[in-house]
Every structure is written in structure tokens, then in C-alpha cells.
């Protein structure tokens, strides 16, 4: 049944998988195979079809065409339950854990056994033994809400292993992890392959893929562009070409850093998150005209709240000055009036109105004033003229300016949002995860736009979970951890190891280089 000459059957073998969604062919005749005991990376840009393919393997989708074998036997899954029964476990980007329950309870959830009495103590030991066997550091008795994201990921791994998975599919597992946690994850993955399990590692990060994978399959636009090539001897450049289909430019060119006057000054700012828990615990920051301040941190450490406080969307305590004025009126309207532009994290829910046209979405910040407003009436022809010119200038690919925003691709929607925000000629631009989920071409475009704003003398706060992006664009980097700024560095002097350590809350006695641009800031 196996297609190659090796003795053991392939753990997974896919032949000619086709999966169509309305308007797109997500997988177009894809072949893929996973050998026992290997880490096989599935590399591709967002929308290349990687997750679709693995969702088929995990029983979430049914392929329109093609066949699939597990351990040499043909299978056709009707649900994830079938896939798990066949020994395939998938760990999604969003974890499915119950925060108020313990690790053991989460692992047992949904199983037929134990039937009535949980006998938790016995199972706790079982979990601990299973985890220890692979060097997974997890306390079975801890409640999930107490765990870090990295630990929660380990619980998901444990869940799959407990269900007898010998193939683990991990969808962008490093997206939510700090550098040190990534190392830890890689150690776990190696321990698992050593014990004979196989791993599919979905990612779009080249360095990571080269670091962990034995073999690599690259996908582009639903098709395989490189099938199971050995990671050894492959370069980043090769992979990038296979992934994007053309030569990739290096990082965005940047001019000298000429900081101007302080545009945003925050002193001892406190704010709560949506659950009423403290999210910012005394943040002090300065951002100057002509500089990009990167905020580095693991997701959920107060970044979203920081952006919302600055853009007037969240109430706060403390002092925020924008261009020397104390921002007392804490409303989004007030922030807009003061020239604060906001590229929000949630493009479809916050940054755009999905069922309104491109035109209506582009005037979201400009509809109150001339030339769009004409007294209390909106000058429709002026709005349409503006929309037409922005659509061209920012290359928003859409049939017309009447196209509904929800029909735009992620990259085009982000171009629309940037067009609108940059067109307001902001003195302060708050960009949150501006390139998340975009393909390489769109990322380049977004980076160029941000740099152009910097050239034009705007102050920019760049919040991103992608450390490479922050280091590539920012003039200074501030590390946020649990609502505190643990340090601010000039990007030229920043050290990735040190940043990573701070991102996970460890100061480790490192000398904090507080940038000289922050005189008189109470030490964080």
C-alpha cells in the first residue's frame, strides 16, 4: 500500500485532494505524505490552503475529490471523532479549553470514560506520567485560566496524546508564543518524534520551519509548489520564492531617525479590560514625531487596551497628552479630532462595516467635515470622487467603489483601512497587528505605508506580536508584560534574547536600558 520503498507505511498519504469553497479552490489536487517519526512542515502564505488541507485530514471538512490513507488504509472521515479514532489529532490556533476547569478535567472532557465518577486523583497521576514521558511541563491540577498561553498549548497537546494520537497536526503553533516558549515547544516536538509519533507543522515563518522540520511541503494558492523537500540544504530564499512565487524584497528601506517633538505622552495610565480586570497597570510612554515606537509582547498583555486608551475607545486613569493637550474628553470622536488615526486589530468587526460599500467605509472618519460633509448632508459625488482616487492610489482591488467591504480580501480590506486612516493626515497613528493574516505582498505594502507616514513626520505606535516586524520597522521598542512597560530600547541596541525574556516577564537581573528619550519616567 505504501508508495515508497520504506518498510513502515506512511502515517498519512493524501492523493489529489480537491476542496472548493464558493469562489475559490482552496485545495487543487494536493498530494501530501507524512512519514512515521518525522516533523513535516506545511509552509505557505495565508490563504494558500494549508489549514484547509489539514482540516480535511482532521475530519472537519470533507474533500470534494481525492483520497486519503492513514497507516496505509484508505479512510474517509465524517467528523473529527473519526479522525481521532484513527489516531490523528489537530491543535488549532484557537484553543478549545474550559478556563475554570483543571488540566485533567479538560483532557478528559468529551471522552466516554470515566463514565460517572471522575476519580480525578487517579487521572491526575496518569496525566503527569504521560506529560513527563515527553518532557511536557504541566501541572494536571492547575486550572486552565491560571496557565500561560504556552502552557495551555501543552494541555492541548496532552489532550490529543491522551486520545491516542500518533499524528499531531499543529496549526501555526508559534503564533501566540514568546521566543523562549517556542524553544520549549520545539523540544517537546522532538521528544514526540523520538517516541515514534509524527507531526505536521503548519506555518508561514521560514526560520521556524527550517529549525524544526525534517521535510517541507510548500503550498501556494491551493497547489503544492514543493513536495516533501528535505529541510537540510534548503535556504530561506528558496522557500520564500516557492511560497510567494517571485523574488521577495528585503526589509523596507528606512531613512535616518530624526525624532521631533513629543506627540503622545502617557503617564501612569491605568485601565481595565472588558472583564473589569486590570489590563494596564501604570503605563508611561512617550512617542515623538517621526518615530515608530514598537510595542512588543505576547498576546493579551495589555496591547489591545493600550491602543484603545490612546484612541479614546476605553476609559482610563492617569494622564495622556496628545500634542501637549491633556486628553480629558475620553471619546473616540475627541481622539479623531486631535489627529489620532487607528488601524484596529479587528479589521472586519471594528475597522470596517461589512455590509456598507467601499465608499461608505472610506468616509468613516471624514464624513463630518468638508468636502464630504456639506452642512448636514453628505456630498455623495465628493465622497465618490474621494473613494475613486483612494481606490486607485492605494490599489484596493475591487470591482467598484460600490462593492461591499465584506467582499474584499484581507489585504485589500487592510489597504482600505490604511487609506482611510492615512488620508486623515494623522499626527499620531496607532497600528495594531497591521499585517496579521496578510500575504507577503500585502505586508510589504503595509510596511511601506507605515514608513511613508513616519517620513511625513507622524508619530506611530506599532503593536505587533511579530517581533521581526517590530524590529524591522521601529525606531524604539517597548516591551509590555501584564500591563506594564518592562523596558524601552533603541532598536539598534535591542537584543532579541533579552526582549524575549522580558516578554515572558523575566527580568533576570538584566540591566534595563531605558532609552534616553524618556527622562523623568518613573522606572517601570
Amino acid at each position, binding site marked *: 500500500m505504501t508508495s515508497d520503498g520504506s518498510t513502515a507505511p506512511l502515517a498519512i498519504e493524501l492523493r489529489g485532494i480537491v476542496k472548493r469553497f*464558493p*469562489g475559490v479552490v482552496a485545495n487543487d489536487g494536493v498530494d501530501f505524505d507524512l512519514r512515521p517519526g518525522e516533523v513535516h512542515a506545511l509552509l505557505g502564505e495565508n490563504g494558500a490552503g494549508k489549514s484547509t488541507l489539514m482540516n480535511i485530514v482532521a475530519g472537519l471538512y470533507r474533500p470534494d475529490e481525492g*483520497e486519503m490513507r*492513514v497507516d496505509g*488504509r*484508505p*479512510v*474517509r*472521515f*465524517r467528523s473529527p471523532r*473519526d479522525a481521532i*479514532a*484513527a489516531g490523528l489529532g489537530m491543535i488549532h490556533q484557537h484553543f478549545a479549553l474550559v478556563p475554570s476547569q483543571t488540566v485533567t478535567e479538560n483532557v478528559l472532557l468529551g471522552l466516554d470514560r470515566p463514565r460517572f465518577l471522575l476519580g480525578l486523583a487517579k487521572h491526575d497521576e496518569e496525566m503527569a506520567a504521560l506529560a513527563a514521558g515527553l518532557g511536557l511541563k504541566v501541572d494536571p491540577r492547575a486550572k486552565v485560566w491560571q496557565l500561560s498561553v504556552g502552557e495551555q498549548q501543552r494541555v492541548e497537546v496532552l489532550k490529543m496524546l491522551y486520545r491516542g494520537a500518533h499524528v499531531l497536526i499543529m496549526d501555526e503553533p508559534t503564533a501566540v508564543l514568546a521566543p523562549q516558549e517556542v524553544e520549549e515547544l520545539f523540544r517537546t516536538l522532538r521528544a514526540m518524534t523520538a517516541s515514534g509519533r509524527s507531526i505536521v507543522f503548519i506555518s508561514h515563518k521560514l526560520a521556524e520551519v527550517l529549525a524544526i522540520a525534517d521535510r517541507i511541503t510548500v503550498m501556494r494558492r491551493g497547489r503544492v509548489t514543493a513536495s516533501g523537500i528535505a529541510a537540510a540544504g534548503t535556504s530561506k530564499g528558496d522557500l520564500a520564492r516557492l511560497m510567494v512565487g517571485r523574488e521577495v524584497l528585503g526589509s523596507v528601506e528606512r531613512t535616518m531617525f530624526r525624532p521631533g517633538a513629543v506627540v503622545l505622552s502617557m503617564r501612569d495610565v491605568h485601565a481595565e479590560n472588558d472583564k473589569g480586570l486590570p489590563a494596564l497597570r501604570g503605563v508611561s510612554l512617550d512617542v515623538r514625531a517621526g518615530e515608530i515606537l514598537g510595542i512588543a509582547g505576547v498576546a493579551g498583555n495589555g496591547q489591545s487596551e493600550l491602543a484603545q486608551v490612546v*484612541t*479614546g*475607545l476605553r476609559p482610563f486613569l492617569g494622564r495622556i497628552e496628545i500634542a501637549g493637550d491633556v486628553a480629558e474628553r475620553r*471619546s*473616540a*470622536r*475627541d*481622539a*479623531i479630532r486631535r489627529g489620532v488615526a*487607528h488601524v*484596529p486589530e*479587528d479589521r472586519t*468587526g*471594528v*475597522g*470596517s*462595516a*461589512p*455590509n*456598507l460599500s467601499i465608499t*461608505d467605509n472610506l*468616509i*468613516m*472618519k471624514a*464624513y*463630518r467635515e468638508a468636502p464630504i*460633509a456639506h452642512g*448636514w*448632508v*453628505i456630498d*455623495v459625488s465628493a465622497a465618490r470622487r474621494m473613494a475613486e482616487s483612494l481606490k486607485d492610489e492605494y490599489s484596493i482591488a475591487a470591482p467598484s467603489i460600490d462593492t*461591499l467591504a465584506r*467582499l474584499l480580501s484581507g489585504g485589500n480590506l487592510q489597504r482600505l483601512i490604511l487609506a482611510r486612516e492615512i488620508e486623515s493626515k494623522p499626527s499620531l497613528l496607532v497600528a495594531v497587528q497591521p499585517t496579521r493574516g496578510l500575504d507577503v505582498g500585502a505586508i510589504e505594502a503595509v510596511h511601506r505605508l507605515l514608513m511613508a507616514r513616519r517620513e511625513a513626520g507622524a508619530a506611530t505606535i506599532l503593536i505587533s506580536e511579530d517581533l521581526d516586524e517590530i524590529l524591522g520597522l521601529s525606531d524604539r521598542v517597548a516591551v509590555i508584560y501584564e500591563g506594564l512597560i518592562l523596558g524601552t530600547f533603541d532598536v539598534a541596541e535591542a537584543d532579541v534574547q533579552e526582549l524575549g525574556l522580558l516578554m515572558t516577564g523575566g527580568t533576570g537581573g538584566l540591566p534595563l536600558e531605558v532609552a534616553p528619550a524618556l527622562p523623568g519616567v518613573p522606572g517601570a
Partner: protein
Amino acid sequence: MTAAGSPQGVAARSRRTVQLERRLDVPRWLPYLATLGAVAFALLVSAMILAAVGGDPIRSYLHIVDSAFGDIGVISDTMVKATPLILTGLACALAFRMRLWNIGAEGQLLMGAWGASAVVLVPLLPPGAPALVVIPAMTLAGFAAGALWGFIPGLLKARLAMNEIIATLMLNYVAALWIAFWVFGPWSEGGFQLTAQFPREAWLPRLTDLAAQVPALGGLTVHLGLAFALVAAVALWFILRRSRWGYEIRLTGDSPPAARYAGIDIARNTIAIFMISGGLAGLAGMAEVSGVVHRLQQAISPGYGFTAIIVAYIARFNPLGVIVAAILFGALILAGREIQPAGVPGMIQGIVLFSLIASEVVLRYRIRLVRG
């Protein structure tokens, strides 16, 4: 071949199944077609029910058309019925646009009727005041009373995040009892459950009033309220389509977080929309007491405020569409009575609403038959 879900097992189940596929784009004409289709489907189902209980659906429908649009006289009557439906339909359509589920148009209509009556019955104006003063005062009072009845749920929603459906629904009962109190008590005419007839100055002008000059208009009871309704519909259409405020409503209706992000004061707009919505419904109440009944009584509305919800839905919340839908339902109310005093007309209305809601599926999804 022992794995769960073997290929044979699946092959054996190969049969046609209906598959819903999300639509990426909705053609411009589709909503209209879906609405027409839903109404046609509803009429078909109603016809089947009529036939099943021994009626003759074709004769019934012909009778409805004839008694609603058969001659100028009944057309006029249809328009009289359509007038409050347009106004309350607009009230609902406006609120629904911002996803505020005001189902209290009925109560707001009653309060408007009460407010307009108060001008005459308290009286708020000296007796003998000319119509040119009385009618505007009643209009204003009717709008204001309705707006007040909208303000209450609006405020509760905006400040305390109270569910507006429950608040508006309950306020309908309060308004009905409020009317009952006044017509049974202070304003009762000789112990009957209605007030004295208003003086002529408090009557909205009707076409039949011009019969002395133009005899052809004799008997036509269409009153100035229809003009109010049509003007309100056009004004609302313009505001929603073209004004800054209308843009805010459309944006908030589509995505409240995006509206907040755009710096829109959602709480203030919520209250304002509820007040205008209530005011429009109040205007319908004013038009009924001043244009049709000429007194306040318990039964002023056969549920216009509830029918308005269906009217707004058929119109897909478009103010100009409300006019068409209201005329259709005005005809149904008028002519339905010819068939059966209760039952059949309400049944047809209900089936129309269900069909409309079901037709949303067609707008969101493409329906395909596939071999499964």
C-alpha cells in the same frame, strides 16, 4: 477497509441533498424578487388553507382586489387604512435600520392619539381657535406624546442596556390602559367608553370636504394624514440616504463597534431614533383621531403598530418601500373584513411575515442540489 467510514459506506449513501452555499455577492434585483416571491408564496399557501377549509380561494382573492381597488371610493378607503400603516411602518423601519427592535409602535400610536386628543379635550387651546392653529397643535402634541413613549425605552436601552423589545412591548399595555382610563373616566361621553366628538376645527381636512366645489370628490374620506405620511417617507428616505446622521444610523446598524470606532455617539443616536420612531407612530395616532374617528375611543387601532413590523420587513426597511407595503396591507385589512371579520386576514399577514423571514435564506445562501 476496516477504518471508520469506509469508501463503500459513503458510496452507498449517494443521493441528492440540498446544500446551502454562502453567497459572496447579492445581485441588486434579488431582494425585490425574494420579496415578491415570498408574498406570492404566502398567498399560495393561504389559498391552499382557504381551499382546505372549503372556501374558494380564487373568488376570495378576486373579492379582496375588487373591494380594495375596485373603484375610486374603495381606493380612497384603502388609502385611509394605509395612512397609519405608512407612519407606523416608517417608525419601525427607521428603528430597525439601527437594529433597534421597537415593537412598541402600537403603544406610541395610542399615546399620539391621546396627546392630540388632549389638545381638544383638556382643552389646551381656547375654544373656538381656528383649524389653522388647532391642527398644527394636535400634530405637534401627537408627535410629542409618541416621542415621549419612544424616549422611555430609548433611554433605558442607551443608559442601562435594557432590552428594548421587552420595554416597548410592555409599554404597549401601559398605553392601552392609559387610553382606557381616560375614555372610561375623565373624558367619557355620558358614561360611554368614548369621548365627545371633536369640533370641526380639530378634523384633518378630507377630500370629501371639497365636494361642494368638486362633486367628484364626494364621499372620498382620504385625509391630510396621507400627505403627512408620504412627506415623512420621502424625508426619511433622504435623511437615511444622504445625511450625515443617516450615515451614522446605517453605520451603527451594520456594525456598532465600527460606529464607536468612527467616533459616533451611539447612546445619543439610540435615544434620538427611538424618539423619532415614537413620534412617527404618534403621528399615526393623531391622524386616526383627527382624520378618521374624530374622537378618542378605546378601539382606534386594529393593531396597526404590529402590522407595521411586517410592513417594515416587506419594505426591507426602505422608507419608500414602506409606502407600497402599507398600501398592500391597508387593502388586506379593508378587504379582509369583507371575507371574514377575523381570522383569514390575520392568517395571511402572518404567513406573509413567515415567508419573508424564510426568504432571507435565499439572500444569504445559494441553494444547490448536489449528489451527496
